[in-house]
């Protein structure tokens, strides 16, 4: 008698817990759900507020691909993001190795400077950046975006990688020194593989930041030649000046998220794997 009451109570409590979870999840996921669902709605259906749409159509997606602007923008985004991430990771790996492992004067100050740079809002450097790009004659070119994205990604990746490099036990480095490795071998053969999960994670974050960046992309580009996806989406226009093509915008947004999802899927195994398991002690 008593035990059934106990079981019942436990069941109720669990039910309440799951309801709570579902509530939170739906709150968080609703905007994404709405975007996906809207991208499949055609015509005036898009202004309906039913939670579950009545009919779905691929129409929006076809429209996007008929428009060449979007294809251009996609290619631009891929080039810009990949270049940004590769250059940022290269610079950051070298810099963070030095910052974490090679004692030199002013090391702390450099680190502080890097950290404070990451805190600046983008708008603050917008006009300065614009001048720089004009002087370098990079306006309306992809390299302008790569350069300006570097100002956000390099400090961030350097900072994160430095803290990972610091975690690598000193003995590993010393063992390598005794084995005859020079600084460069130590970096490429010891540190690089060990921090590679961190490299993947920070690289991914930098990629997402570069992929979704809007302000610089809007300011430093003029034509389809250099425009990236976020700007292209914002520039999508409907049949008349007063119509915002919500369906197309949603479809484009969903499409550009797919590469990110794919990247995360590919790399997630590496992100999770441990850094130095087995290197020292148990």
């Amino acid at each position: 008698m008593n035990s059934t009451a106990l079981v019942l109570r436990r069941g109720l409590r669990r039910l309440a817990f799951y309801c709570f979870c579902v509530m939170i999840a739906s709150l968080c996921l609703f905007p994404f759900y709405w975007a996906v669902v809207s991208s499949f709605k055609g015509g005036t259906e898009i202004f309906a507020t039913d939670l579950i749409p009545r009919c779905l159509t691929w129409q929006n997606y076809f429209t996007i691909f008929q428009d060449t602007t979007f294809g251009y923008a996609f290619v631009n985004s891929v080039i810009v993001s990949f270049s940004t991430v590769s250059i940022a990771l290269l610079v950051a790996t070298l810099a963070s190795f030095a910052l974490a492992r090679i004692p030199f004067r002013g090391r702390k100050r450099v680190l502080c400077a890097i950290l404070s740079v990451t805190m600046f809002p983008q708008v603050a450097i917008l006009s300065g950046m614009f001048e720089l790009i004009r002087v370098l004659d990079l306006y309306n070119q992809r390299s302008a975006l790569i350069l300006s994205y570097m100002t956000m990604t390099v400090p961030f990746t350097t900072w994160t990688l430095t803290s990972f490099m610091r975690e690598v036990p000193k003995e590993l480095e010393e063992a390598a020194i005794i084995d005859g490795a020079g600084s460069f071998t130590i970096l490429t053969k010891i540190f690089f593989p060990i921090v590679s999960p961190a490299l993947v994670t920070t690289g991914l974050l930098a990629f997402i930041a570069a992929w979704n960046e809007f302000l610089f992309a809007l300011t430093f580009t003029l034509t389809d030649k250099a425009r990236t996806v976020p700007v292209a989406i914002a520039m999508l226009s409907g049949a008349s000046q007063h119509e915002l093509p919500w369906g197309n915008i949603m479809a484009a947004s969903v499409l550009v998220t797919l590469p990110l999802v794919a990247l995360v899927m590919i790399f997630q195994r590496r992100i999770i794997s441990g850094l130095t398991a087995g290197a020292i002690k148990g």
Partner: protein
Amino acid sequence: MTTIVLKDVTKSFKDHPIINGVNLTIEGNACTALVGPSGCGKSTLLRLICGLEEPTTGEIYVDGSCVNRLPPVARGIAMVFQSYALYPHMTVFDNMAFALKIAGCSKTDIARRVQHAAKTLKVDHLLDRTPKQLSGGQRQRVAIGRAIVRHPKAFLFDEPLSNLDAALRLQMRYELARLKAELNTTMVYVTHDQGEAMTLADTIVIMREGAIEQQGTPLELYRSPKNLFVASFIGSPTMNFLHAIIVAWQDDQHLNIRLRSGETLVVQVPYEALKWKESLLEEGSELTVGIRPENLTEASSRRKQAGTHLKGRVSLVENLGHEAYVYVSLPVGEHVKVRLTGNCNYAIGRDISLFLRSEDCHIFDSNGEAMRGLKEIPLC
């Protein structure tokens, strides 16, 4: 046959002197153990020898040539770290081959040498695994293997067994002894465990606060510790110390002393050799008598033995089966440990009478220096 010589070596970290003028000759083809309390600079000394640190002053010679300016790899000295420091992303084979690859050995040469080292250390079946798939003992072996493949002039071990559990430590100690005989190279071995030092080393160097206290064979250190510090460091369980005062000099070889508990004994002390510190030898001066637990016996009630008897009460018994360590409190507030064998039934609180021979006593003056030199005690 590589001899390592340290000459007036000092090392300071930001004005903190850590190594204070070490003069040390590490004989070739022998195992030298560095022992000392935590923080006394043992690891620092090893790092100086292998080149991970530069001495502040002084010179280090390997085979007669000064290596102060040489980078670690050029010194030809291998070091095994306490924490193993295996490269986590490489297989056991690659871990062991790393140094050879950097040195530019040929593939077949590398494979041959790694295989040989792996066989010696019985890890040849693990070559494809990564460090995290190994047990502690296996990791330790791989770490040693990484040192062996280079055929170094000397091996430095920094507390190689301290991460292992007791049983494995004994086994690895045995295997290190085997390896030592097999490799026949110069070895320097840092350890906290005086048992390891006693069994593995040909020479023991005892350090304190960055300086060498005493250096000698294990038996020399056991039999004739130079001072209280060394005496309390070597031997397990540690030596007992009793306060005493000088009663009178019988002649220039024999000293009459009285323990706090009132017993007197006559010990042999060469007066001539100690004459220079006369003030410590006057009548009434304080002394410390050291006696090892294994040199105390329970006084037989039947047979009267000539010598000194200490009367006390059993306060604690650690029974190990074949022997027992009995803690005896003496009436004057001092305690002694005794190692007793045979019938190990000692009830706590029981009165016990201990017998000690004056030949077994180590005598230290009030500065803690031993009053007999090394030569006075025959080594047999």
